[in-house]
């Protein structure tokens, strides 16, 4: 995994904007470079890596479509990793995107988009085809949203499922199975993980087109 280091069971990404933090995370020096601590309790992608994700197919020049960017905690680490690429950050909540916009002003490879990911047509003119889709939208139809957006995908993707947002009455295991099946109709699922203890009732899937 490029631009990511692991030290003492913690992971860090190489800071794209030295001396700046995004959410008051710790900065460390390693072999003359500055790295930002990647908190698994705040970022599910970090939790997935710590829980044994074998491969994160992101390169230094990858283009990423990030659905559900929220206030930009995880996108900022993705932006560290794909330093010469681009991260298109789609978020629908004006309140949440406020902080994200501030982060984008400092990180030239992040492109904020305030739109509903249910309607890819509304932002098709703002993005390009991407090498990786990351989706973390806590909505009942989150897998369907991902599938709709795969028209922009040439490569890999990751989906983070929150069982509680899909159906509180069903057992999480059941939901994960069902959503995985939906994914398998369109993609090849490479890895499936649970995110305990960092996030409760969450599953993480890495897939390939």
């Amino acid at each position, binding site marked *: 995994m490029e631009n990511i280091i692991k030290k003492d069971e913690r992971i860090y990404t190489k800071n794209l904007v030295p001396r700046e933090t995004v959410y008051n995370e710790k900065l460390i020096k390693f072999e003359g470079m500055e790295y930002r601590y990647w908190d698994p309790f705040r970022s599910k992608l970090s939790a997935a890596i710590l829980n044994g994700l074998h491969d994160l197919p992101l390169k230094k020049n990858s283009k990423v479509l990030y659905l559900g960017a929220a206030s930009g905690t995880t996108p900022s680490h993705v932006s560290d990793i794909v330093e010469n690429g*681009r991260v298109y950050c789609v978020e629908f909540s004006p309140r949440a995107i406020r902080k994200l*916009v501030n982060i984008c002003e400092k990180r030239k490879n992040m*492109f904020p988009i305030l739109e509903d990911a249910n309607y890819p047509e509304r932002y*098709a003119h703002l993005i390009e*085809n991407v090498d990786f889709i990351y989706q973390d939208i806590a909505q009942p139809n989150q897998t369907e949203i991902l599938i709709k957006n795969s028209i922009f995908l040439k490569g890999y993707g990751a989906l983070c499922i929150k069982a509680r947002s899909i159906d509180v*009455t069903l057992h999480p295991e059941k939901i994960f199975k069902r959503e995985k099946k939906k994914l398998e109709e369109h993609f090849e699922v490479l890895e499936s993980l649970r995110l305990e203890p960092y996030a409760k009732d969450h599953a993480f899937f890495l897939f390939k087109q």
Partner: protein
Amino acid sequence: MKEYLVFNAFGAFAVKDKKVLEHKFFKDLKNPIKEIKELYEKYPDSVFENREIAERLNAKHEFPNEGGIFLRDNIDSIMKLDNEYYINLVKEKIKKASESKDKVIIQAVQALEQVDQSLNFFFERLREWYGLYFPELCDRIENHAEFAGIVKNEERKEKSMGADLEDTDIEMMKSFADKTLEMYNFREELVRYIKENIEKLTPNLSNLINPLLVAKLISLAGSFKNLAMLPASTIQVLGAEPALFRHLRKGAKPPKHGIIFQDPRIHTAPRWQRGKIARSMASKIAIAARLDFYSGEFDESVSEAFEIRLDAIRRKYKERPKKRR
């Protein structure tokens, strides 16, 4: 081979057979239609990806299409992208979203709920505090605001079982009473402000139920639009989420009412009528919300229909139902 007319944030492109035939960069990024039109006149058979623009120009539409895919595949070879435009676009949208009146009212209602909470704490504290000095007054005056007014303006004249405190002690209590009353007056002002604004925004809803309750419903739904799109069954239990999820997950009894319980026609009704009244009221709220949001025209008949139904429930279910065995 079909021709496609696609555009991104910075320019319009006529694409055919995986080649850009011609392109025009937008002079004014906020107003791209001019260049798009010019290009469309030169390539009148082209297919658009964007539905909105296609409909405006009466052009063919297909999403996604080959032209768009080509453009999204080759942006780097066509142009250099800069995120500044994206940032400004989002900032403008945030501004617009914050300008909608319901957002302001939601914040005001949430402020009111917190002010109410704090006021209760303050009044209770004032009673305990002043009670050291003049306990008889605390027991005599039940109304909080009246009590605080007396603490602020009057002296203890009668013989009391309270402690004889120093002037500086009493001064501090009086000052606290004064600040609390000030907050109390602000609360009244806030209520007036919310009522006036909500009545303007939702004439039908405000006619059906208390405008403050309307504001609370909008706050729970997240926005005026959300409320107008909710089914009556959800409106009925808005504000009773813990009870609802207890029902869904563990099979407990479903809640009969959420925040609409605050309407006196529900909470003063006999227990066995409340569920029926709540269900009818929620349906009328759903109708009124849609009227207010989509047409804005005032229609008395919604409230009238509810009153008729209310009467019917009261008459038909006058007696407590016998327990089923």
